[in-house]
């Protein structure tokens, strides 16, 4: 699974370059995210714009990353597709994460460093 990470100020923007976060890749996703999150950024913003589908394993992996970041840092989500949003809404995880409808313009325009 490809994750494209771009530091932007106090945020690490991570784009998931895959259509699915499911049981087949959930562990891989979790481990890669943990490795990326070793950096100092207080906010990790996960761009799910390319993700069409996320199952309970994928949801569990996203929650695991949130917990791994610890209380002083935040994992935020952006650009959830309808099926992914449905899973967050049904499980009420939409109340646990800050969810942006799209990646904020400022982050999108920011060049990679």
């Amino acid at each position, binding site marked *: 699974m490809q994750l494209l990470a771009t530091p932007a100020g106090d945020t690490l923007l991570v784009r998931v370059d895959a259509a*699915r976060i*499911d*049981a*087949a*890749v959930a562990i891989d996703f979790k481990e890669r995210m943990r490795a990326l999150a070793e950096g100092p950024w207080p906010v990790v913003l996960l761009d799910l714009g390319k993700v069409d*589908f996320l*199952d*309970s*394993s994928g*949801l*569990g*992996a996203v*929650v*695991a990353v*949130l*917990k791994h970041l*610890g*209380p002083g840092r935040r994992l935020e989500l952006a650009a959830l597709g*309808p*099926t992914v949003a*449905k*899973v967050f809404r*049904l*499980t*009420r*995880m939409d*109340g*646990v994460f800050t969810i942006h409808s799209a990646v904020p313009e400022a982050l999108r325009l920011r060049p990679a460093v």
Partner: protein
Amino acid sequence: MNTRAGPGQDAATFNGRRGGASVRAGERSARLVYTVLASEGLAVRAGLRTVTEALAAAGVPEGLCGRVEIAVAEALNNVAEHAYDGAMGPIWLQVGRCRRSGDILCCIADRGRPMPDAGLPAGVLPALDTVLTGLPEGGFGWFLLRALGRGIRYRRAGGVNRLRFRISPEPGEVASVVSTAEPAPQSCHGSTKPVPGRDANDHLVAAMASPGAVCHSPHPARGTGD
């Protein structure tokens, strides 16, 4: 493991006696998917793609298609992770659509371990009002299945687990024009006479006993009847 799976010979067993009364007997439906897959992540993914492509081709609304994908994914993952406990085994998957209601009927069979206590998990949403470290990383699968599926039925017979459920369209969700090339209507109860009082999913169940059907009752393994 015995993975023989010839055409079912115990349709009566598979038809079961318990049926939801939510759908009238005689309702007609069309089978959209009919496949067998291995209990492994990438095979499950391929099976789900087969389902979503078939549903889209049949004009099933996108939202309904997404809910079916979530529910079927959780059912298949449960089989792979719990019934087969990570080992490889066959999963039979059949999906159809009731013409009257537009409900999507799903039927999943496997030869793995039975459900604990021969029942269905409660599927209660894990507590979220907790400190960060207490947030659940699992336990969402059956919750999602119960939240989306109606008429969920589980049956264990002849060493085979059979789970079936239906996903209904939401108000305002209307199917697009259905192709006239769609297969001829099939009774919700298969080629047999409709039996009053049966759940409409029984048509899938009955279909499993017909030649070439996939969600049929796999022939019981030697001496594993329970």
